[in-house]
C-alpha cells in the first residue's frame, strides 16, 4: 500500500460472533455491539406501514413478532436449512440481513477498508459457511471464517491443547482445540444449556410455590440477575404475582439447584474429550479449560466444574473468560488484526 493511499484509507477490522441467541461485533474503532439473533419482516403492507421498516432485528423483532415473518436464522448454531420444509431461502435472507446489521452496528467509515473475521459455530456445514461469506461480502472488502471456540481461545493467547466450554442458550459446546479447525471428533454438543436451566428452575419454583404465576421470561430474568452455584450466594428474592398481586419469594434454593444441574453433564463430556486425546497431553488439557458464553456468568460455575473434575477426573483447572458476551468477537477481532496483509488481499 502506498503512502498516498494510507492517507484516506484506514483499516477497520471486525470480529463477529454469530450465535444462536446473540450476534456480537467487536471492531478496531472501539465499537462493541450485540444484538439478539432474531430477524423479522413485516407480514403485509399494513404491518410495514405501521412499523415503518422493511426489516427488524433483535429485541425489536421479538416485540413485534406477531406482525412479522420471524426468523432465528442461526438456530442450532448453523443456518437453518437442514430440511426442505424449513424456509431455507427465508433463513438465508435473514442470516444475510443479520450479518449486514452486525457490520452496520460497527459504523464503518466509507473511506476505510473493512476486513472481517466471523466466528461461526464449529459444526457449521460447508454450504452454511458459503452463505455466511456471501452475506458478509456484500458489505466488507475481505472476509474469513474461523471456528468460534478457536476465536475465543486465540483471543486469550491460549493457542493449543485447550478445552473450551461455551454455554449458550440452546447448547453447551465442548471443544478440544489443538490446531485451528476442530474436527467432529473434537466436539461434543449438549442441550443442557441456558434454556435447560430456565426450564428446571421453572419446574422447581412451581413445585415449591404452586400459587406463584410466572412466565419463562420472568424466570430467565431472575436467573440472569442471581444465578449462582455457590453455597453462599446472594438471596434470590424476587416478586412473582399471586392471583395478580405481586408477592415476594425467596428463590435461592431452587435457583442454585437448577444451576448445579448443568455441571455433571459438562464434566462427563470433558472426560470423554480428554480420554480420547493423546495420553501424553491429557493432563495438560485438563488444566487448560476455558469457560465462555452467556451461561458462564453463573457465579461460582468455574469452581464447581473444577471441583467436579477433581472428583471424577483427578485434576482440572477452569478459567472463566472475562467478557463472556464478547469473548468470541474479541478473539475474531484479534485474528483479523494479526492476519498478514497478503492473505486479506488474496481473498478480496
Amino acid at each position: 500500500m502506498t503512502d498516498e493511499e494510507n492517507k484516506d484509507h484506514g483499516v477497520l477490522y471486525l470480529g463477529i460472533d454469530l450465535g444462536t441467541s446473540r450476534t456480537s461485533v467487536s471492531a478496531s474503532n472501539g465499537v462493541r455491539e450485540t444484538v439478539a439473533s432474531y430477524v423479522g419482516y413485516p407480514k403485509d403492507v399494513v404491518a410495514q406501514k405501521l412499523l415503518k421498516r422493511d426489516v427488524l432485528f433483535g429485541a425489536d423483532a421479538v416485540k413485534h413478532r406477531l406482525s412479522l415473518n420471524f426468523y432465528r436464522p442461526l438456530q442450532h448454531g448453523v443456518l437453518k436449512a437442514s430440511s426442505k420444509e424449513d424456509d431455507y431461502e427465508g433463513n438465508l435472507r435473514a442470516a444475510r440481513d443479520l450479518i449486514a446489521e452486525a457490520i452496520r452496528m460497527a459504523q464503518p467509515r466509507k473511506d476505510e477498508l473493512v476486513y472481517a473475521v466471523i466466528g461461526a459455530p464449529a459444526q457449521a456445514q460447508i454450504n452454511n459457511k458459503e452463505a455466511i461469506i456471501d452475506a458478509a461480502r456484500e458489505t466488507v472488502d475481505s472476509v474469513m471464517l474461523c471456528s468460534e471456540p478457536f476465536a475465543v481461545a486465540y483471543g486469550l493467547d491460549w493457542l493449543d491443547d485447550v478445552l473450551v466450554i461455551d454455554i449458550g442458550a440452546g447448547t453447551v459446546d465442548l471443544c478440544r482445540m489443538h490446531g485451528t479447525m476442530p474436527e467432529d471428533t473434537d466436539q461434543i454438543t449438549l442441550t443442557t444449556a441456558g434454556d435447560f436451566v430456565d426450564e428446571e428452575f421453572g419446574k422447581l419454583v412451581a413445585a415449591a410455590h404452586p400459587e406463584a404465576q410466572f412466565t419463562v421470561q420472568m424466570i430467565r430474568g431472575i436467573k440472569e440477575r442471581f444465578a449462582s452455584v455457590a453455597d453462599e450466594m446472594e438471596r434470590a428474592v424476587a416478586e412473582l404475582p399471586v392471583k395478580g398481586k405481586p408477592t415476594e419469594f425467596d428463590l435461592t434454593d431452587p435457583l442454585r439447584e437448577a444451576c448445579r444441574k448443568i455441571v455433571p453433564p459438562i464434566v462427563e463430556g470433558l472426560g470423554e474429550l480428554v480420554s480420547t486425546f493423546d495420553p501424553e497431553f491429557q493432563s495438560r488439557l485438563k488444566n487448560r479449560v476455558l469457560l465462555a458464553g452467556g451461561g458462564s456468568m453463573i457465579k461460582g460455575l468455574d469452581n464447581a466444574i473444577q471441583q467436579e473434575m477433581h472428583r471424577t477426573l483427578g485434576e482440572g483447572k477452569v478459567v472463566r473468560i472475562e467478557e463472556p458476551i464478547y469473548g468470541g468477537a474479541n478473539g475474531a477481532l484479534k485474528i483479523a488484526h494479526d492476519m498478514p496483509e497478503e492473505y486479506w488481499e488474496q481473498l478480496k
Partner: protein
Amino acid sequence: MTTATVNFSETDDGLFTPEEIRQLMRLEYDRARRYRYPASLLLVAVDRLESLQDLYGWESKEEILQAVIKALRATTRDSDFLGCMHDGRILTVFPHTDEKAITSIATRLLGICRALDFRTDGRALRATVSIGAAILVEDSELEFEHFVEIAEEAVTFALASGGDRFVRREAADDVIDRLRDEIDAEADRLVQDRIRIQEAAERETSAPEIASPLTPPILGTRPHSGDAADSELAKAIAAVFRDGSADPFALEADILAIAEEHVRREREAAVSAALAEHGKQVDLLERRVRKLKGLLDETGAELSRIATLKGLDSGIASIYRTVQGLSPDEDRLQEKREMLTLIFEANLDLQKKKRRS
C-alpha cells in the same frame, strides 16, 4: 503573561490539587460572567482511548494522554489557562478567550494531535482527539457545572460523529432552543387570545335576545353616527308631538316605539363596529401566528437538517491507518503465523469451491 495553572495528573501533587483547580475555574468563570468578559472552556477527549487501553494496556493510555497534554501546552503557549483531568478527559478554562480565539486554539490542537507519531508495539496508531467547547455568552445565567455539561455534550457529539473534530456548543444551539421555546410559547398565547376574542364576539352577537331593548350596548363605545342619530331621534319625537294623536297613551306608545327602534339601531351599529374591530384583531393575530408558524417550521427544518447531518455521519474511524499483521516481537510468532495460514487456506479453499460451483 502568567504560566498556566494546571494539574493534569491524577496522582502527582502539583501546586494545586485537581479539586482546587476546579474551584479556581469556577471562580474564574463567575468573574467572567460578572464583569462580562469572554471565557471559553475546552474538553478534550482522546478518541477511542478505552479500546486503546484494552489493546495496549494502561501505560499506552497514559502515554497518549501525556502527549496530548504536551500538545495542548504547545498550542496555548501565549494564553493563561486552568486545566485538570475530568473523567479521563482534559478540562481547560480559558479566561479572556472568545469564540474566535478558542476556535483557533482547538483547530491547532487537532492538527498537532493528528500529526503525533504515536507508536506502541512498533505499530503506527492514530491518536486523534475530539474537542468540545463551551463559550460564555453575554448575560448567561448558567452555573459553571452546567457550562461544563455543555462542553461534555459537545465532545460527546464530536466523538459520536467519528472523532477527530471540534464542536462548539455555545450559544448557537442554546439560542435556537431558547428561541424555539419562546416562539412556541408566543404562538400558544396568540392562539389562546384568538379563541378568547372569538368567544367574546360570539357572546356579543347573541346578546340582544337576552338583553332588554333599553339596556345600552354592553360593549363598545357609541358609534360615530351618534350626533346624526340623535338629531334624527329629536326630529322623530317632535313629529309625533306635532302630528300624532292627542291620546296620551297612544303618544307614549309611539314615542316608546321610536326610542326602541333608535336604541336597537344604535346597538346594532355598536356590535358590528366591535365585531369589525375583533375581526381585524383576529386577522392580525392570525397573520402573526402564521408568520411565527413559518419561522417555527423553518427552525424545525434547520434542526432536523442538523440532525440528519448527524445521522449521515461518516462512521467511526479505526485506530489503524495501515494493515497490521503479527508484530515481529509477538510471543510464539511462528506458531501463530502457522495457525493464521491454516485459517487462510481453509477460507481460500472455500472460495475456490464456491467459484467452481
